[in-house]
């Protein structure tokens, strides 16, 4: 797992404000929690700020802390705990490889190698044109479909080296490959079709 780091001051924008669209979503998130418990919305707000700006900036943290009446350091504690928050300007497309034990046992090393060779960058780095960034992440919670390759909000499941390369090639061409299992399988059902309850919906 990469070490937590806050982007240098030179990269930090001076101010942050939610756009009207995002502000509406922010208000909706805050309204979900009872009066006095607004701080519970911190994770959602951080995510929204990341979606708006691409990564979580100092100004965004200060803005959110102010909005929720929290100390800035408390917000930073949340940001630094979750790998899903990016605190440095990365690529426009963020590729995450899970290397936790189940994915690793199922061949995440090959996925990692494919990403590194295809994009020419290592973990925690981004391509020179700023298009891609590669991240090593902890368990993505989809071990039944290990190994997992996460591209922004999409999970590409049951990947291996060649499948990873195919996905990245498509992304490089500007396409969006179909997310989900990359083998013959419906979601997390058995590979190769159903093995039980085969007659459900059948004659008997």
């Amino acid at each position, binding site marked *: 797992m990469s070490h*937590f780091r806050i982007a240098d001051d030179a990269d930090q924008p001076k101010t942050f404000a939610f756009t009207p669209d995002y502000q509406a979503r922010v208000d909706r998130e805050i309204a979900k929690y009872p009066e006095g418990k607004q701080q519970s919305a911190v994770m959602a707000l951080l995510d929204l700020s990341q979606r708006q700006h691409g990564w979580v900036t100092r100004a965004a943290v200060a803005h959110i802390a102010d909005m929720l009446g929290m100390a*800035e*350091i*408390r917000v*930073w*504690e949340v940001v630094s*705990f979750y790998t899903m928050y990016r605190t440095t300007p990365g690529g426009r497309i963020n590729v995450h490889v899970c290397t936790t034990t189940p994915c690793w046992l199922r061949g995440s090393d090959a996925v990692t190698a494919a990403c590194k060779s295809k994009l020419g960058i290592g973990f925690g780095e981004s391509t020179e044109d700023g298009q891609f960034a590669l991240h090593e992440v902890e368990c993505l919670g989809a071990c039944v479909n290990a190994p997992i390759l996460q591209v922004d909000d999409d999970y590409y499941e049951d990947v291996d080296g060649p499948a990873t390369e195919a996905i990245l090639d498509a992304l490089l061409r500007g396409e969006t490959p179909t997310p989900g299992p990359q083998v013959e399988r419906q979601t997390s059902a058995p590979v190769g079709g159903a093995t039980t309850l085969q007659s459900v919906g059948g004659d008997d």
Partner: protein
Amino acid sequence: MPKLTVDGIEVEVPPGSTVLQACEAAGKEIPRFCYHQRLSIAGNCRMCLVEVKPGPPKPQASCALPAADNQEVFTDSPMTVKARKGVMEMLLINHPLDCPICDQGGECDLQDQALHYGADTSRYAEVKRAVQDKYMGPLIKTIMTRCIHCTRCVRFVDEVAGVPTIGALGRSGDMEITSLEQAVASELSGNVIDLCPVGALTSKPYAFNARPWELTKTESVDVHDAMGSAIRVDSRSGEVLRVLPRLNEDVNEEWLGDKSRFAMDGLKRQRLDRPYVRKEGKLQAASWPEALQTVAAKLKATDAAKIGAIVGDMADCESVFALKGVLDGLGVTSMDCRQDGAAIDPSCRAGYILNTGLAGVEDADALLLIGTNPRVEAPVWNARIRKSWLENGLKVGVIGENADLTYPATYLGAGPQTLNEVANGSHDFAKVLEGAERPLIVVGQGALSRVDGAAVLAAARVIAEKYAGGRDGFGMLHTAAARVGALDLGFVPGEDGRDTAGILDGAASGEMEVVFLLGADEIDPAKLTNAFVVYQGHHGDRGAHAADVILPAAAYTEKDATYVNTEGRAQRAYRAIFPPGEAREDWAIVRALSGALGAPLPFDTLEALRTAMGEAVPYLDAVGALAEAEWGDFGTAGDMADTPFASPVRNYYHTNAIARASETMARCIEELLPPATEATGTDG
């Protein structure tokens, strides 16, 4: 009342107690790092594991486990011992073995507990983690590789200091304690050094100075503010190396303000170490007999009405008592201990002490602060107000400066107009006071050090009588350690006597010919140029620069002395080191001066002086106790100007001669205060 057994010993503990507290009640020591009785429970170090029945067949963290009826706790069973060994081994995995160069060495919880509860060898042969050091300000030195993530510092700044600037960033093996490279902007920041159970946070000014076993420890009291916090002065070879808080539940609990803790390096600088007499316009070194004879001759040759004396903020009771004896003998009535001109009424003791005691604020349910900013005037008491707000929901109203007090306070207004509104009940906060069971009205020096101070005091008394039942809901917060003691001793203008402003103006106009300053530095020296000024004190500060004769005296760490704090509690300071050079203890100087005047005071020893002082003012003899004061009429009702109240402390780090001579305090100002409030020549 849960009843349980600890190692077969039956104990009964108050409801809500933890197993750890029950073990302590049974006299069993439980090792711990993250648990601290004044902080919230974190339960993350796991050092306090014990075996508990009934319960799951595994050790449990006693600090976070509620004590319950019929529990059986085992603090030295094989399971407990093995668990502690395991936890200690885990803690030491990433802890460097740098005790020989660590400032915590010798007073380190980890070192001590590793000795008692750890194994003798390590099985760990992998790479240890290293963590970059962090910047936390001019007072806290960090060596973060040593951190064991107990989060005591995080909880302290968040809960007690109320300045949440330290946090734990990252997760699991990458977790780091940091303040994001910001200085910890609290007047109580030094306490995290005491709280840190390892050498991760240590004192920057004290770095690599001494080992704890080399130090002579003297238990004393602090004089940098009027709280009289209990301190321990650690010295070696005639040098004060550090000051630490001592436990005193009634006064400072176990905390200490940064100025009280770190300004002691000022004791080594700018010291007056020999007598000086001004000859041909220049201060020249002189002998004690020469200096005393010069003063005595001048005093004898001057009409008593043209002599004045001002007592400074750090003077001890003994010297004030002796000086008053000398002045009374000469027939001098112009004397004052209120350098700032605060309109305190000396006739009614209940009118100038904090009648509820400092701890009383914990029982209060509404607090009205008038012209005071306790955060800078008495930071440790401010933490207590905060505690009361956290635990009891204390409602705080402020008339004066709208400052950040670290807890929510209703800002009522800036000055006397608001005071009037509260007094006549038209203000909203009057309803809060009315509805409160134990309201407390606290008046600060900022409300009194003004032309209409007496009227403000009278208005505050009216509010206290109307809403708070008079004495038991009234208090005054002082900023000077000497103030209450000097008021008790009656060091105030006598018949036809002049007060501070009168003495200074008289000196400027030539009506006052001799002015005796007992450590008085917070005055305008420009007014003293025409008068013959005698300065008795320990630092070459403002007062000494205006002096014609300098009598070098001892600072608070260099004499046995009595101080009375803002709640009227007489406390003793003890000598940790000797005063430098030819400087002498204050009372002895005054006694010698009385001899030179040919009218020696009737005591030759400190004991004899204290006996005489105790006869004059009995509660000065009752060291450590609080005496109830009689409520009476004080203040003078009258018109009040509508200028806002301002706290007398403009710059927390520069309020007295010792702090002004301290390099550490200068660094604090540079790194902690915004440029706009930086010290100027008239600050203090």
